[in-house]
């Protein structure tokens, strides 16, 4: 009797071990399917378009899109406005990451994808399978400043330049009263606290863009190539911008980077950048737009990929140099006939003046006029 009870219990624990192991592993495995398991891009968009009071020319139907979380808040606001103005239209933007968005797009499940860096050549090549007669192109849509936030009680209006920022994040400057920081902030009383740098633990377009800036503006002090993964040693890592900003908020003597909205919402002071302009430049949406205005279009044909390197080294007044631009990725030709009308209509709306004006309130930077004009004409040629 006892024997039986015991072996029953043992069998139970064996089973539990096996099941928990299986659950664990399916947990790892199922991640991989998230890109491919989404239902195939959907459904019909009837071509009937009507202009309405809000200036949106409505198209009904349903489209799927996915990608960058950097533009999540902007897209959410736009989708809400569009769907309010146009009953019968459904735009489903799944926020994942730029990488997953591009994979979804190249598997044909997305009408358009959002990405915080332009397509790589091999990704363009892969897109030709989906865009029967054309290829995937980058359409810049949402600009944003990357703020350098810090936690240093008693010090406001901290000013740094590209070289000191790179040295701090690279561990070459380790205390707040370092000579280089003192020289940029002659009137501030800087403590001798050690600097705690905070960077992203997950791979991220924000890291990619910050390291592009540091490498572009101070290559001697940031010897690493730009990358989505943090290349330097030392410092602390936290998950996502929310984790980085929370850690900066929590830790005295810390400095980190995140999108401006995180600094605003938690009232974390941000660094003003000494760019060589007459005044150090503050991280604001307006200044970021001025920074992006320095960028050159390097995409060919209807592709509008931007080269931001001119923005990193700009000396123009009120032009904030640490900026990122997210792109919407669609086919130039060969978009699916079922999704094209709504895609075009939605992109038209978000690139329009009224669409772009929404951005500043969410901590993003509207596209500068010159680029916005090119974007609109590109969208009108999508087919």
């Amino acid at each position, binding site marked *: 009797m006892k024997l039986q009870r015991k072996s029953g219990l043992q069998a139970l624990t064996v089973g539990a071990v096996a099941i928990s192991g299986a659950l664990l592993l399916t*947990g790892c495995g199922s991640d991989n399917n998230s890109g491919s398991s989404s239902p195939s891009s959907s459904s019909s968009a009837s071509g009937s378009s009507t202009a309405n009071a809000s200036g949106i020319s409505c198209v009904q139907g349903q489209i799927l899109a996915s990608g960058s979380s950097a533009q999540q808040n902007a897209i959410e606001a736009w989708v809400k406005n569009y769907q309010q103005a146009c009953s019968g239209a459904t735009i489903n933007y799944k926020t994942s990451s730029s990488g997953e968005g591009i994979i979804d797009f190249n598997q044909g499940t997305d009408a358009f994808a959002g990405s915080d860096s332009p397509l790589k050549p091999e990704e363009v090549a892969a897109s030709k399978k989906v865009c029967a007669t054309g290829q995937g192109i980058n359409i810049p849509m949402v600009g944003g400043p990357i703020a350098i936030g810090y936690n240093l009680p008693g010090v406001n209006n901290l000013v740094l330049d590209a070289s000191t920022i790179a040295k701090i994040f690279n561990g070459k400057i380790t205390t707040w009263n370092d000579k280089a920081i003192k020289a940029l902030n002659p009137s501030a009383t800087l403590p001798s606290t050690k600097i705690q740098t905070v960077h992203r633990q997950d791979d991220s377009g924000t890291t990619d863009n910050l390291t592009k800036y540091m490498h572009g503006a101070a290559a001697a002090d940031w010897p690493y190539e730009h990358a989505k993964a943090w290349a330097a040693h030392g410092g602390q890592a936290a998950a996502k911008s929310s984790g980085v900003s929370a850690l900066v908020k929590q830790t005295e*003597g810390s400095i980190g980077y995140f999108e401006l909205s995180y600094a605003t919402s938690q009232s974390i002071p941000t660094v003003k950048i000494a760019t060589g302009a007459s005044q150090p430049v503050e991280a604001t949406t307006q200044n970021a737009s001025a920074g992006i205005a320095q960028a050159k279009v390097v995409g060919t044909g209807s592709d509008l990929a931007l080269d931001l390197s001119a923005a990193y080294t700009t000396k123009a007044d009120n032009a904030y140099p640490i900026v990122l631009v997210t792109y919407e990725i669609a086919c130039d030709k060969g978009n699916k006939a079922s999704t094209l009308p709504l895609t075009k209509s939605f992109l038209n709306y978000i690139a329009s003046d009224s669409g772009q004006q929404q951005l500043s309130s969410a901590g993003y930077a509207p596209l500068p006029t010159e680029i916005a004009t090119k974007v609109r004409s590109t969208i009108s040629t999508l087919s």
Partner: protein
Amino acid sequence: MTTIETPPAAAPPRKAATVTRAGDRVFAAMSRGSGILLLVVMAAIAVFLTVRAASAISKDHGNFLTTFEWTPSLNPPVFGIAVLAYGTVVSSIIAMLIAVPIALGIALFITHYAPRRLGGPIAYVIDLLAAVPSIIYGLWGALFLVPHLKGLNLWLDNYLSWTVIFHKSDPNSAARSLFTVGILLAIMILPIITNVSREVINQVPKMHQEAALALGATRWEVIRLSVLPFARSGVISASMLGLGRALGETMAVATVLSASPVLSAHILDPVGGTFSQNIVAKFGEADEFGRDALIASGLVLFVITLLVNGAARLIIARRKEYSGANA
């Protein structure tokens, strides 16, 4: 060691089943099917992991087992699991060192010391701990535990720095270390170890305990002489279940740990990483190759888990003769 004699349990005589009904056959088929399905699923997972992992490892320009960095997107790709394996094992060991004694203590308290009025509610509260999602543990860990562990970190660094393990390179850095992760994991695996241990301890024959009492044993001696030997293998099983969860825990670790490709013996330093934490951090922006590389690391975790479970079975098998299970 055991001086208690029990009469051998009379096994009920088994009769060969002479009559089979449809229900018997259906049930037998169903249970056999479930067993086979489990094996098929496990085999499918193993094959999937192996195929994807092999293609990634063959293109790795570093040594997969000894490289610290995880940079499969570089050209040439270099990635390795040294830091991840170390971090996974160390954080799990810390968790086990904290959780197993406490869980055993709680289980014994509920079954042998607490008045019935108190034991029930305590068991219930422990069950509640198991229902908290791991991301909540992670947020609690990052926002509450990390700042509040600063004092303990400084104390350990001050007085135990000579042990090397408790040396902290930068006393000011936040406590987002393998040590903190271990504490958090200990809280997370406490309920499963406690519950299974409690069940096992409840199975200890009353006769053994009463016999010990009759021989003049104190309550502690009863536990030491009759309860623990009988429950040992069950408690080891319970601990292994907990260890399985600790090895694979993802979100809580990713939220708390400050991951970086540094392998350090100082468990208070905010460096290191674990398999699942690395997967969740790198998966989002990984391309096809990067995903295969992450799957390869998942395979290593699979193997480690298998080894741990195998070791546990071995221990249980060797302990069997002392365990009282043969009583």
